[in-house]
């Protein structure tokens, strides 16, 4: 299996990769498919090699999230990776802003005893901490984890995350905006930063919330099935049905679930996940109510659904954004 084997392995993987590329080509013919089946049927080696290349090809679909949304495809989009201190690259400097923005996808950045985890636009990520607590980061989000002095502390710096605190003697503390929350063991809760303060939804367990507003010291205990919003004006909590919690957390399955939200709210949601932005050019349509289940990274399928269902038309603007306006009724 020595040297000759290495080149044979590469030959098989190349052949597998070629089939993957061909079969995904829109002009692939039935004869091509039959030839592929014959090739794959020749050996388990071929079959396994094909699976390996096909899975990699599928994972590369995620690169679509890096599309800047500008009209014309840019072949040199991914010319280099000037990610902070993570990769040396000879061409790193002074590159297209789009490429730079796309590449500074948050990695893991350790600062002393704290560790930061971040996601880029369109990205999702699950982090399992040393005590088995889990953090699920939504698009364009960042947390800083610091376990010290008998306290497990996590700060939500940007975006939205679901926290699942593992049972442990040490308290699990979440900081977001000015608030400090202490979760009971085995609590599952979502926190989303807002322009002022944050929204907290408890799916399981319970959490003590201290909104941290200077004047008022009103600690609230939030239990499962409760959503709270806090900001400089204080905190408000209300019970919400489980279906509503699941809808709000559909992003964990890579989806946006709409159940009567306005077009304006729906567009704001899609814009969190995609570089290609959607804009409502005509305020008279922003109040349209929508329902449906969409992939976060497929704004075009959402736009198609809207233009099919409503008197709305879509056009791509000079800045690459999709502009929605009212379609005149003829």
């Amino acid at each position: 299996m020595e040297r000759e084997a290495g080149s044979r392995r590469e030959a098989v993987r190349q052949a597998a990769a070629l089939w993957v590329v061909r079969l995904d080509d829109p002009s692939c013919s039935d004869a091509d498919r039959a030839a592929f089946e014959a090739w794959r049927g020749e050996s388990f080696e071929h079959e396994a090699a094909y699976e390996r290349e096909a899975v990699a090809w599928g994972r590369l679909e995620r690169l679509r999230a890096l599309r800047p949304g500008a009209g014309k495809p840019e072949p040199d989009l991914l010319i280099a990776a000037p990610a902070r201190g993570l990769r040396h690259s000879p061409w790193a400097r002074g590159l297209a802003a789009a490429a730079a923005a796309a590449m500074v996808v948050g990695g893991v950045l350790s600062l002393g005893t704290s560790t930061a985890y971040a996601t880029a636009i369109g990205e999702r990520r699950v982090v399992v901490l040393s005590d088995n607590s889990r953090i699920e980061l939504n698009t364009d989000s960042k947390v800083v984890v610091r376990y010290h002095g008998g306290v497990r502390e996590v700060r939500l710096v940007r975006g939205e995350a679901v926290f699942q605190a593992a049972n442990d003697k040490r308290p699990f503390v979440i900081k977001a905006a000015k608030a400090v929350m202490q979760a009971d063991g085995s609590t599952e809760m979502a926190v989303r930063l807002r322009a002022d303060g944050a929204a907290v939804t408890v799916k399981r367990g319970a959490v003590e919330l201290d909104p941290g507003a200077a004047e008022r010291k009103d600690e609230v205990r939030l239990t499962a099935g409760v959503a709270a919003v806090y900001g400089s004006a204080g905190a408000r909590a209300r019970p919400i049905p489980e279906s509503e919690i699941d809808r709000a957390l559909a992003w964990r399955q890579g989806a946006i679930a709409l159940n009567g939200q306005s077009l304006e709210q729906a567009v704001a949601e899609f814009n969190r996940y995609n570089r290609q932005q959607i804009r409502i050019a005509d305020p008279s349509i922003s109040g349209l109510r929508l329902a449906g289940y969409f992939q976060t990274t497929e704004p075009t399928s959402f736009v198609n659904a809207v233009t099919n269902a409503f008197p709305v038309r879509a056009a791509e603007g000079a800045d690459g954004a999709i502009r929605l306006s009212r379609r005149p009724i003829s």
Partner: protein
Amino acid sequence: MAQEDDDRRAWFRREILPLEPDLLAYARQFCRDGQTDPEDLVHETFARAIACKTWREIGNPSAFATRILRNCALDALRRRKVLTITAVADFERIEPLDETPGAEAMLESREELRALAEAIAELPAQCRRVFTLRKVYSLSPDAIAVRLGLSVSTVEKHLVKGLRHCSDRLGRRNGRGKTRVDEGRSWSGKRDHDAKR
């Protein structure tokens, strides 16, 4: 029958392929003397694993794949014309793969997007352009050929090259960062007498 094959392949994708970085690290331990390529061991392990018609009965895919890899390594050892003592010593010493997940296993996106983009950035210029147009902008090979003034078969060649590069990069990444692989290099030399059997 076709359904059965699809199920078996789906199982292979789901349970076996993601083990590649771990299997590769494990395979390296059998290949310290440089006579066997660890990638070949993994490649052969995959071929034997996907052949398993009784996959439904496998409760622990990681242990299953590890066992196959060990057998592949043993077969490779037997095929050798010159047997080095360290190779045999290593073989006796290497323990089955640790199956407990690492402290900070990245379950989902695992920095994947960044890793993918970095892998593309490493490609030669023309190959990188072709690949970017195909996978980031979803242009068809025909459209790419027109846009860049290439033949369709050249576009295909670039795509194959890019895919091969990326699939190897994806297979090598290991979030667990285990280091024990290299620890025993000098140690196994000292214990050569153990291997004379």
